[in-house]
């Protein structure tokens, strides 16, 4: 999409743009319903929660861990000025993630890079898979 920001433009270019936007995957159908979008993954030792939260400092994000959930809370503030177009979500966001396994709350770590929050939740020792040795008689 193009902003009507120009006094001189070619109507043919404009048509191309319209066409291009229409063809583009990820336009329309895949609209995100929740904010922020999350990726949950795990390996043997950790559960990893990643969230796309651009424009927010890690200090302004509140992470709360309860027995069964992790809550991500924060606020995105709108910029000051006269708006021509506003698409970036602003306001308070809040997401609750259900944790299906117990985590070691003492060793939870969080970091932020390029607008992506990563929370690493180590699984407690009891739930880790372990091999049981069978002794043959």
């Amino acid at each position: 999409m193009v902003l009507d920001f120009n006094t001189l433009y070619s109507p043919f270019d404009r048509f191309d743009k319209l066409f291009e936007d229409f063809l583009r995957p990820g336009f329309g159908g895949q609209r995100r319903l929740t904010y922020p979008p999350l990726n949950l993954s795990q390996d043997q030792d950790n559960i990893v929660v990643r969230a796309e939260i651009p424009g927010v400092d890690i200090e302004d994000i509140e992470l709360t861990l309860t027995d069964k959930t992790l809550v991500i809370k924060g606020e995105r503030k709108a910029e000051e000025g006269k708006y021509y177009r506003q698409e970036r979500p602003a306001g308070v966001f809040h997401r609750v993630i259900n944790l299906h396994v117990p985590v070691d709350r003492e060793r939870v770590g969080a970091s932020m890079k390029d607008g992506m929050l990563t929370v690493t939740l180590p699984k407690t020792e009891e739930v880790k898979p372990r091999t049981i040795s069978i002794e043959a008689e």
Partner: protein
Amino acid sequence: MSEVMKKNDTNLTQYRPATDILEREDGFYIYMDLPGVAKDALVIDLQEDELTVTGTTSYDLPEGETFTEMQFGNGQYRRTVSLSDIVDRERIRANLKNGVLELFLPRVEKTQPKRIQISQG
């Protein structure tokens, strides 16, 4: 090949980044949400009146990790903005912080009205 085809020949899913455009006293500001895009993966092109921002994300999972749920993934952000004639193209500034690209488009210094002399032949 048309321009449209050329732009779509990458295998990456294309996204239009959410964009704010606003005006302040000193000029125009554009904010684009580009989460996961590092500075090296971001390209800003200015061609005539068209400013095109392209950024790619690479969210490869570390070895041994598997997804339980996935709501965002790899892709390419691309967005074009047409600039008006009142933008000073030489002084455009860009800054990428916390996954948000800030573009500052200053206004052209006001040109003084000029009287045109008429010569008499």
